[in-house]
């Protein structure tokens, strides 16, 4: 059996092709899903990729959350289907209330684009089982509205339940509360983060690694984690 992982394209999505490529390199079939689709095409998991859906003019992800396909994704997520939101996809997951909190403009007001180190704080989500707890990984980060905010009660709850899945290491690139780079839902099937694992999956096209320039592939295990989990339950 080959796992089928859907990659959603909204008007203004930028990273759908890279996300699909990451899915294929990890060993699954990438299924393109259009935002106006009325079926999830029998996929086993969904990736909401980065970009600027509907131009992000209102708020990041604010209009995309009302796309027809989002109702299907919310239902499937409540049923346990793995869903990964990257950057704009993370913003979208908060707007549609699958994840708590929200993203506002970076505290320094600049667009930031860099190789970012983050720590895997929860290696038990559907998208992180192939990492070690506490492992540091380096993947690209690029955003302007990347500052994660939530009230203290929500932040305390996330911390207590181990739902801060990723934390920035070395430098907090956007002012995110408690250095949070990404979070998960209670069940661990819905994961959102600002940095981009799909841009660090193939030697020659990733961040610099210890071995050689642009050879970092620290993002690949997001996708192999999901695939392994899907095949185990199939």
């Amino acid at each position: 059996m080959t796992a089928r992982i859907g990659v959603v394209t909204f008007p203004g999505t930028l990273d759908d092709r890279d996300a699909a490529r990451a899915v294929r390199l990890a060993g699954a079939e990438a299924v393109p899903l259009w935002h106006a689709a009325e079926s999830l095409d029998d996929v086993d998991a969904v990736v909401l990729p980065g970009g600027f859906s509907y131009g992000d003019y209102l708020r990041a992800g604010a209009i995309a959350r009302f796309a027809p396909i989002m109702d299907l994704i919310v239902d499937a997520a409540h049923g346990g289907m793995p869903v990964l939101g990257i950057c704009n996809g993370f913003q979208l997951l908060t707007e549609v209330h699958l994840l708590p909190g929200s993203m506002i403009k970076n505290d320094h007001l600049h667009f930031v684009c860099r190789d970012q180190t983050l720590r895997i704080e929860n290696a038990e989500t559907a998208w992180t089982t192939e990492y070690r707890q506490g492992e540091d990984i380096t993947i690209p980060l690029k955003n302007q509205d990347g500052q994660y905010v939530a009230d203290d009660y929500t932040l305390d709850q996330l911390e207590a339940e181990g739902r801060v899945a990723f934390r920035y290491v070395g430098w907090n690139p956007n002012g995110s509360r408690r250095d949070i780079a990404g979070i998960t839902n209670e069940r661990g099937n819905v994961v959102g983060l600002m940095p981009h694992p799909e841009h660090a999956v193939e030697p020659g096209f990733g961040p610099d690694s210890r071995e050689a320039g642009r050879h970092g592939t620290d993002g690949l295990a997001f996708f192999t984690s999901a695939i392994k989990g899907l095949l185990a339950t199939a």
Partner: protein
Amino acid sequence: MPTIVVDVMPKPEILDPQGKAVGAALPRIGIEGFSQVRQGKRFELTVDGEVTEEVLAAARTAAETLLSNPVIEDVVAVTVEGA
């Protein structure tokens, strides 16, 4: 034609990076005396016809669901202009 104006502001406890940048620029152009600037959004919804209770209710729903995100923003006013 009447217009329903929806004013949305970042919640007081949420840092407002845009407002902060504007506030820091004021003294640079010689405008003093303002300790803080907060930047929000104003939406103008033009109404075809009369502003009934129903239309106003629809505008309030729009304000709460699409025009603002309750996690980071407050709808501070929904008012009718030019009726």
